[in-house]
């Protein structure tokens, strides 16, 4: 990048003004890059074109032009103005320093207090926007940190930054799953082929000339995921991460649905689809206001069966239950309701984060009752174990 910038200097028609412009634009592109914008050399060159095009004095125009050029999604679109003002409008260029290191913002945040309950408190935590796509220090830092974190049990995440990093990874993992599932199916398909029998049959009409070719093609079928997430107190260490995971899955798998339950069941598909992560948190907090203690898995699933199942369960559906199986209701009811689901859906997957612990035995009453109806019983306590889910989803 540096050599190229040097080249630009050389090529430019010369003059101090021109050099200053090149330097200023380069500085700005670097600034937005530091803030996680996906920009490269090409954008830098185009940014210069924009700047030359509209004379630097025309500040509003420069803003609009650079915004279209450098932004790639809504999140960046909304952050752009602030960066632009900070860089171009302040007389003192030192202000930049205040903005760039993201890590500093993180240190100001209080660490996650362990043992916190559920969605409500997670939502209360102050957030400096979605750490989401931005990545703290570009690609280099991210990779190694990710490696360390893949095997960690989610409950050992201590500070806010790790937590947010994990949230981001979890959501991204979910989105990637779809891509890989599709690829797998494409390999199995082996391209388009002529369906000979039908083609010859149709050719009779034209005196034996195969005028109409009939192709056979495997219809691509992705599973429809129905996520039922336990957000009770015993799951509090995990529930927010699973909600992020659910958000990623909803984004990747069309017509999937998500519900949360505790003592009641509430559909949250629309809430999770909300683009702005802070709004998602607010809405979830409102939903879970005033929920009493205890977990009624059986009753919640009963409600699901009565109200939603008929509309959304089908032969493509995989029901994913996320729960530790600690149920204060009747185990018999849970068994009965799971059986009903089993009859309508393709598969029941039960993710129990406790399964990742060495000493865990699925002895809880609810868990015991549920086991006979579960097709896949897996742990989901770390990124690795979540990624392993993919192969389960691939074989419908």
């Amino acid at each position: 990048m540096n050599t190229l910038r040097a080249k630009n200097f050389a090529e430019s028609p010369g003059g101090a003004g021109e050099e200053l412009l090149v330097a200023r634009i380069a500085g700005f592109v670097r600034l937005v890059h530091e803030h996680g914008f996906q920009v490269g050399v090409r954008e830098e060159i185009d940014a210069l074109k924009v700047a030359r095009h509209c004379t630097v004095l025309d500040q509003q125009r420069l803003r609009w032009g650079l915004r279209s050029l450098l932004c790639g999604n809504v999140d960046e679109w909304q952050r752009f103005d602030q960066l632009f003002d900070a860089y171009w409008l302040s007389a003192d260029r030192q202000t930049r320093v205040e903005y760039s290191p993201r890590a500093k913002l993180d240190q100001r945040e209080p660490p996650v207090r362990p043992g916190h309950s559920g969605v409500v408190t997670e939502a209360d935590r102050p957030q400096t926007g979605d750490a989401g796509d931005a990545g703290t220090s570009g690609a280099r830092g991210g990779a190694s940190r990710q490696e360390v974190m893949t095997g960690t049990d989610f409950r050992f995440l201590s500070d806010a930054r790790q937590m947010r990093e994990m949230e981001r990874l979890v959501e991204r993992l979910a989105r990637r799953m779809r891509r890989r599932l599709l690829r797998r199916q494409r390999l199995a398909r082996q391209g388009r082929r002529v369906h000979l029998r039908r083609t010859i049959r149709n050719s009779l009409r034209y005196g034996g000339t195969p005028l109409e070719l009939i192709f056979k093609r495997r219809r691509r079928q992705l599973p429809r995921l129905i996520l039922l997430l336990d957000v009770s107190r015993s799951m509090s260490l995990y529930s927010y991460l699973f909600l992020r995971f659910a958000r990623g899955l909803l984004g990747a798998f069309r017509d999937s649905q998500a519900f949360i339950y505790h003592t009641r069941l509430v559909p949250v598909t629309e809430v999770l689809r909300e683009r702005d992560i802070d709004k998602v948190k607010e809405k979830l907090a409102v939903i879970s206001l005033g929920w009493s203690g205890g977990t009624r898995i059986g009753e919640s699933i009963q409600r699901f069966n009565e109200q939603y199942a008929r509309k959304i369960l089908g032969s493509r559906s995989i029901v994913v239950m996320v729960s530790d199986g600690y149920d204060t209701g009747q185990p018999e009811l849970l068994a009965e309701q799971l059986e009903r689901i089993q009859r309508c859906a393709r598969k029941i997957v039960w993710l129990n984060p406790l399964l990742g612990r060495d000493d865990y035995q699925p002895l809880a009453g609810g868990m015991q009752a549920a086991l006979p109806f579960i097709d896949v019983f897996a742990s989901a306590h770390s990124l690795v174990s979540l990624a392993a889910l993919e192969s389960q989803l691939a074989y419908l």
Partner: protein
Amino acid sequence: MTDIVAFQERLEAAGYIAEQSLAATLLLFAGLKRPLLVEGDAGVGKTEIAKALSNVFDCPLIRLQCYEGLDANSAVYEWNYQHQLLAIKIQETEGRTAEDKERHIFSERYLLKRPLLQAITMPESPVLLVDEIDRADEEFEAYLLEVLSDFQISIPELGTIKARSIPYVVLTSNATRELSDALRRRCLYHYVDYPSLDKELRIINRYLPQIGQELAGQVVQFMHSLRELDLRKRPGISETLDWVAALMRLNVKQLDRDAALIAQTLVCLLKTKEDRDAVTREVVQRLVANAV
């Protein structure tokens, strides 16, 4: 700045009311000739941008509607099998060599051009609208990316077809799926938000000039407060226009006259059962009172 205003006026003459910032982006888009990715909620007028541009540039508009399962055959080209087979039949009695016949049936005459191929073989730059790119699969997105960066398409039987002119490419997305970073990087980006009061008023006046100014003002206010409610599907500009047309049909001159009638016309705006339930009569009254 003058050229932006001038461009804004040209857009308006073509039937599209744009903010200055959008006009600036479009001007840049025409200058740089990079594809433009337009995002925003449904009904804010993303597709209309492409139509207006084709009007302003006075060039044809080629539209590629994306959907799940869209493949290269329906987006780029296909051979016209029937004609080819007929041609073979006809040639049977002629004494041409096999090679000659083959060259004949795989000539451009038997090629069905689909939107992408059509767009790059036009003598003058057309506007290519790739609508709802988020509905297409990732594989198609990758293919599109290749076409958009090289502006050439290779057809095994014919060889590589290079673009005769580079089209103005407008992509729209509703964000039902995350687009790849590669595609985002290739494109200029513009996020279209719901219109401001002033803009919506101008749009209504532009499309339904017979409307009284009193009603127009009230409608715009009403729509703004309606969009602030927590709805599943927030009504866009096209819904506003539908509603205004309905109100005019029913001879409504002011929103606060006939509450029952207004409640009936809300079918134009609220398109899901949940939203209908959420906007009760009291809510409507409150919104109307705010608007008047």
